[in-house]
């Protein structure tokens, strides 16, 4: 039982993610999370502003139920299945993050410098969350998918466009971590 309360290893998590994808496929749907952002925009009335949002959002209700479940799953995992949420990352990564000013590295699930309640009144942390979120939403729709839709679903179906998108994800991510982070922090 103790194993459940610790972080789950990759060889348990990866197959379970594949199982989630196949369950959705057998329900006649597909595994892709970022399209929900478009659905939510349409529900808020964005279809009156841009043709991109003019579609029948009710056809996507099933996926909104999936993300509601993803939130409930986070609540269950945090409150009932986790003894200590601290993420045991590589000591070299911890040392590097300490240098950049992230004292919470190795001791928390998310960096308190960005995701603690104090971040909501810290203009720099707030700007990082807003810019990061904006790029996620903008980029995922431009690329037509995110990690679930391209890196898992698309690559499982051997789609070249998904491979191009995943290469793009890594170019952007590596540039952010290795070039921009030392300038930002």
């Amino acid at each position, binding site marked *: 039982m103790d194993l459940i309360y610790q972080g789950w290893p990759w060889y348990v998590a990866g197959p379970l993610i594949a199982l989630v994808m196949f369950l959705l496929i057998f329900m006649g749907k597909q595994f892709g999370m970022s399209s929900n*952002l478009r659905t939510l925009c349409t529900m808020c009335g964005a279809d009156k502003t841009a043709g991109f949002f003019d579609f029948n959002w009710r056809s996507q209700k099933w996926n909104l139920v999936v993300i*509601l479940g993803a939130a409930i799953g986070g609540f269950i995992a945090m409150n009932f299945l986790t003894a200590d949420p601290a993420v045991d990352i590589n000591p070299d990564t911890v040392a590097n993050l300490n240098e950049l000013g992230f004292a919470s590295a190795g001791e928390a699930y998310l960096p308190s410098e960005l995701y603690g*309640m104090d971040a909501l009144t810290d203009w720099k942390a707030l700007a990082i969350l807003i810019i990061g979120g904006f790029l996620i939403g903008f980029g995922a729709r431009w*690329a037509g998918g995110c990690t679930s839709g391209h890196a898992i679903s698309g690559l499982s179906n051997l789609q070249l466009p998904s491979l191009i998108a995943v290469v*793009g994800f890594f170019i952007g991510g590596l540039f952010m971590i290795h070039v921009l982070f030392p300038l930002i922090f």
Partner: protein
Amino acid sequence: MRVVGYLVIGIMFGIVMFKSEAASWFRIYEMFRFESFHMYGIIGSALVIGVLGTLLIKKNGMKDVQGEPITFQPKEKSFSRYMFGGIIFGLGWALAGACPGPIYTLIGAGYIPVIVVFLAALLGTFVYGLLRDKLPH
């Protein structure tokens, strides 16, 4: 009844994202520094099973629960939208340390500031919708 099915699948996904730490900003940072196999193992093992399962479904012409044959939509062919959109997504993924699935999981886990990331992602999606015709696809 189907709603219950989607909810259960979502809950399972949320628990796996949280417990595997794929929803952790630290794991994503560590991945981009190539200092752990963890995230590559998760994506890689999901992919090996994903590729084999997809082949199996196609080869046997399997049907979904409604009895409809399962089809896989090929992604439309292009380079620029996937490369440029992918780079923009990657910049945000590394900065905020969250993908569009784990965002909901983290909010459910009680990390209130993630709501800011979620609202900004909605805004980013909206702005993409406004600019779509002006962007290369």
